[in-house]
């Protein structure tokens, strides 16, 4: 341990670099001053302003609709993809294509989806953002669920069939319960990703239904106000909670 003691320095610096901005942001959200750059005492004023801002509330509502819808669809489709790939296929082609949307740059996905939607004459709005988020969401769910499936004994499913359960009963009574922690972890992952997703939403959203990240972007264009800091702090709280919960659940899975 002592021999690599000096390596603690770059480690500490890295963490400082990562988290100082976040800490500053949270502290500044409690700033009483109107200027984002000077400290004017502790206050929850900006949280009150935020609560009364109709644009922000509308954006938040839109985002929650998209995130919830994308999560439900992604979980259903992603789980089916994972089961299909793990149990009924050994094609590496299908494999890499199922996971590609999680890796393809957002900008590519955003432009591609926009072109695709206009090609098939779909009007843009929350539904198109939702579908766009499902595209990468189900890839993430598929990856997480598959990792879990690869650790479960396939003879559990055979045992269920052997004992008289059909394929559907086996899926719901044996397969789903044994991958449930991964399904929940995948759902939380998709929810948090969708919550603050900007690039794809920017391309595929309609003008009358901005999601929260788009609302924030338009606010920031006229300068960063402490209101933004308050909003960002709240979003961070939600994301952190979800990610921590997801990690906990994955760890629980591993220990079983």
């Amino acid at each position, binding site marked *: 341990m002592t021999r690599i003691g000096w390596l603690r320095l770059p480690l500490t610096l890295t963490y400082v670099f990562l988290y100082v901005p976040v800490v500053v942001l949270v502290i500044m959200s409690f700033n009483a001053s109107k200027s984002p750059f000077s400290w004017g005492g502790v206050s929850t004023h900006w949280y009150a302003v935020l609560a009364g801002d109709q644009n922000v509330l509308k954006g938040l509502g839109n985002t929650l609709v998209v995130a919830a819808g994308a999560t439900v669809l992604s979980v259903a489709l992603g789980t089916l993809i994972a089961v299909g790939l793990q149990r009924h296929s050994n094609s590496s082609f299908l494999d890499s294509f199922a996971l590609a949307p999680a890796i393809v740059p957002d900008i590519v996905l955003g432009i591609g989806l926009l072109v695709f939607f206009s090609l098939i004459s779909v009007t843009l709005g929350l539904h198109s953002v939702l579908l766009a988020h499902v595209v990468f969401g189900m890839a993430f769910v598929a990856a997480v669920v598959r990792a879990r499936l690869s650790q479960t*004994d396939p*003879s*559990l499913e*055979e*045992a*269920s*069939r*052997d*004992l*008289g*359960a*059909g394929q559907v*009963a086996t899926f719901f*009574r*044996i397969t789903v*319960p*044994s991958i449930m922690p991964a399904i929940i972890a995948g759902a939380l992952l998709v929810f948090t990703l969708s919550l603050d997703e900007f690039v794809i939403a920017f391309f595929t959203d309609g003008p009358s239904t901005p999601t929260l990240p788009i609302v924030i972007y338009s606010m920031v264009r006229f300068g960063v106000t402490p209101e933004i800091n308050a909003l960002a702090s709240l979003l961070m709280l939600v994301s952190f909670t979800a990610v921590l919960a997801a990690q906990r659940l994955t760890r629980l899975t591993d220990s*079983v």
Partner: protein
Amino acid sequence: MTTQGDVLVSIQRIARRFGDVVALDDVSIDIRDNEFFALLGPSGCGKTTLLRVLAGFEEPDAGQVLLGDTDLLALPPHRRPVNLMFQSYALFPHMSVERNVAYGLEREGTAKAEVRTRVGEVLETVGLSELAKRRPSQLSGGQRQRVALARAIVKRPRLLLLDEPLSALDRKVRAEMQLELKRLQHDVGITFVVVTHDQEEAMSMADRIAVMHEGTVQQVDSPVDLYQRPSNLFVAQFIGTSNLFAGDAVTGGIRFAGRTLPGVVVGEPISGASRLLVRPEDTVLVEPRDALLSGRVIETQFFGGVSTVAITVAGHDVPVLLTRQGAPSAVRDAEVHLSWDPAKAVVLSA
């Protein structure tokens, strides 16, 4: 009570290949009602594939399986009156012991009250009533094995398949469970088919054994007949320890190093290159005038109940082994003379 008789399962000309690998090649076996049957062979001999064909998880390329009058292969796994005890036990980790055991009955739509009685009964049979509420992760290996067994027999299948049932247990528990399985098979009166690579396990439990090698059935017989009357060289070498002398077949034995070693031919007459099988316990030390072979003792071993003597014989490249009750009957480097009862030696085609 076991009353063995009519054929329950008739496996007819089953073939299965995976790419270039032939897992089953024209396999035909009849399994009788109420029988404890073992499929024995080294790994990769096709025994597990055959078991999975019976359970419905593997479709053969050709052949037929009849259970009574029903065509078993036409039924999906969940409609076959056959249950399988998996090598890994495959207990459902998110269910208690009793829920695991009840699973099969509930899928059949058995009435709740009956499910409860039958689960209670079968848990008592395997001695697990106390642990009904536990999760599989809270059980020992032997207990898990009993749960798996209870879950497989609670539906009262016509045929119970067991895939290497004892391989996950340590040595001591394994010996106990061998007796336990045999007792249980008597009590519940279900036909058991066990897959194993362990010849002692098969010999000690089974009424009849099919020895398999490279996808083909070598011999189907009772343990005693397999041991005393192997039908080919593979079976002779796979089952037990054997002394095998190489030579050309002649009437009443084989020619070996200028003399005739006596033995019997089982089944078809044999000519040309052959082997003579003599079991170590049938080999005895005799006076020089009665000797069939002579040699020098190179090693003796005493195991308490029995002892082994290893003897080099001119013209035979591995030592001839002799076992007898009690202490060794010869000392190292002694000149000894061997003989055997010709009726107990078997001539096999090489």
